């Protein structure tokens, strides 16, 4: 059979940018863990609560009432006003709902928009790592250079001024950070954040502050980055409903930023997404208006599980700092002499407990694993029992 001329002359069909980014390292673990029936997963990056009933109900009511059309590109003004009020009440930061608030398809979209609206090809974005898996690829997709700023156990996974300054060049344009942090659970207090703010001010950098875990702060109240002196005008504050209100599947987030940046983000958003899902916006409005009690209950339930998990991990011989927020513990696996990938893989195969190797979250995560404690106490106890057995068996 002769080859068709079409096949011979076939052109490349994937862009250089798409080819240049790696699929998330989490994928491999997902594939492996999904094949196991009775595996206990500490690998889940979302709340184990179902969305509060009042929020689900508000969404159903909006459907019943026929709210099935688009909303304003930036999101319903009622929701933007509620977001502005919430940010003021909870975190003492002021935003104009009309010009400075944008409702997005998850914090995920907000991160993408923030980068695309402010960063040019060739610019450098300093990213505190380990951190959420999307930051580096999204910076790459914008044609810019992600520059990791490593945090580690020695600094309790907080960024320091020294490390930040060491990474700055004259192409640096922005700092990306997220506290409370995924995967480390680290929290930075006002003073520690101020050190970052000083650097931003000194080198004229923007700050993308992903504060999606702000509510899940167990020992202190959260400091919004834009609440720091002079930082309101430099900060793109990213947040969303996924974690605090257990609404991951709704795909709803928001961003609060100075008007010029918000409006630039809105331009991209209006062409790529049009608007965030209308039903989800109705649910989110209810969450902000009547959800704080439920958040408080969820927070105290996470706190107890955090305490349990951290004690149990340390007892099993995996050193673990006390994470101040989010719902992850981030122990070192050094005691077993394994690297984090091997540890996670062996633990899954031998004991059927899924954790995520820290290195998928960036350099600073090497030698650690992320254990999500957003799972039932029963499951946690069984998992910690198995972990203990595993560590004892493999102790160096």
């Amino acid at each position, binding site marked *: 059979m002769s080859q068709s001329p079409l096949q011979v002359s076939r052109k490349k069909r994937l862009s250089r940018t798409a080819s240049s980014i790696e699929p998330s390292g989490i994928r491999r673990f997902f594939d492996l863990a999904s094949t196991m029936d009775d595996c206990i997963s500490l690998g889940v990056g979302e709340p184990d609560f179902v969305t509060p009933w009042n929020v689900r109900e508000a969404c159903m009511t909006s459907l019943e009432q026929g709210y099935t059309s688009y909303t304003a590109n930036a999101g319903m003004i009622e929701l933007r006003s509620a977001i502005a009020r919430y940010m003021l009440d909870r975190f003492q930061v002021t935003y104009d709902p009309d010009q400075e608030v944008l409702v997005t398809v998850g914090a995920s979209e907000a991160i993408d928009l923030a980068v695309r609206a402010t960063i040019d090809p060739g610019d450098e974005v300093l990213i505190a790592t380990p951190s959420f898996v999307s930051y580096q690829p999204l910076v790459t997709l914008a044609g810019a250079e992600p520059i990791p700023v490593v945090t580690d156990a020695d600094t309790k996974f907080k960024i320091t001024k020294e490390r930040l300054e060491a990474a700055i060049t004259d192409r640096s344009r922005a700092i990306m950070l997220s506290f409370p942090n995924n995967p480390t659970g680290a929290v930075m207090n006002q003073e520690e954040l101020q050190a970052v703010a000083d650097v931003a001010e000194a080198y004229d950098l923007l700050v993308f502050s992903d504060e999606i875990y702000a509510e899940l702060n167990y020992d202190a109240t959260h400091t919004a980055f834009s609440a720091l002196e002079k930082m309101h005008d430099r900060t793109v504050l990213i947040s969303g409903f996924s974690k605090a209100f257990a609404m991951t599947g709704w795909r709803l987030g928001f961003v609060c930023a100075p008007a010029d940046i918000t409006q630039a983000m809105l331009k991209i958003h209006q062409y790529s997404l049009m608007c965030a899902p209308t039903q989800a916006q109705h649910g989110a409005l209810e969450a902000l208006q009547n959800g704080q009690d439920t958040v408080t209950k969820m927070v105290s339930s996470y706190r107890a599980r955090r305490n349990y998990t951290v004690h149990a991990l340390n007892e099993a011989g995996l050193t673990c700092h006390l994470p101040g927020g989010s719902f992850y513990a981030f122990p070192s696996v050094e005691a077993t002499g394994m690297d984090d990938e091997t540890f996670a893989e062996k633990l899954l195969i031998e004991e059927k407990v*899924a954790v995520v190797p820290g290195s998928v979250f960036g350099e600073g995560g090497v030698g650690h694993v992320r254990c999500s404690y957003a799972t039932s106490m029963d499951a946690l106890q069984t998992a910690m029992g198995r972990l203990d057995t595993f560590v004892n068996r493999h102790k160096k």
Partner: protein
Amino acid sequence: MTKDKEVELIRILEHNGRIESDVLAKMLDESEEDVKKTIQKLEDDHVILSYAAVVDWSKIQSEESIAAMIDVKVTPQRDVGFDEVAARIQRFPEVSALYLMSGTYDLSVVVEGQTMAGVASFVSNKLSTLETVLSTTTHFRMKKYKHDGVVFNQDEKDRRMVVSP
């Protein structure tokens, strides 16, 4: 242990009375000894009265019982109000719960028995004959959907993917 922690301890036990003290200690970030001491104190002070399982008896056919909620109107008595009649009613072993209510009646009595006839006879022979009882209205319970915050016949599986970012 701080008051806040004590309340948290009570809340945890209210949902799971079987949780072991070493686990509780870790959850509360307290020593096991302190946890045990606090529980002992709460029991001594009758804050914690008992530890019971929430049972779905409908799954055990031979043991399924009948329950009725009875609205009772009574004449309150001088000085003791409703407490004296309540004290008499609560002693009957058939009575599983008893509350003083606001509204159109005074006491809400939950009665459990083996048969409908048994419950009916309790109402007519024992409850209505009490001196201060003016009237009773009996409602038989048909099915339990939710009890003490626990949903019966719940099938809420964890629908999350096993690993996610």
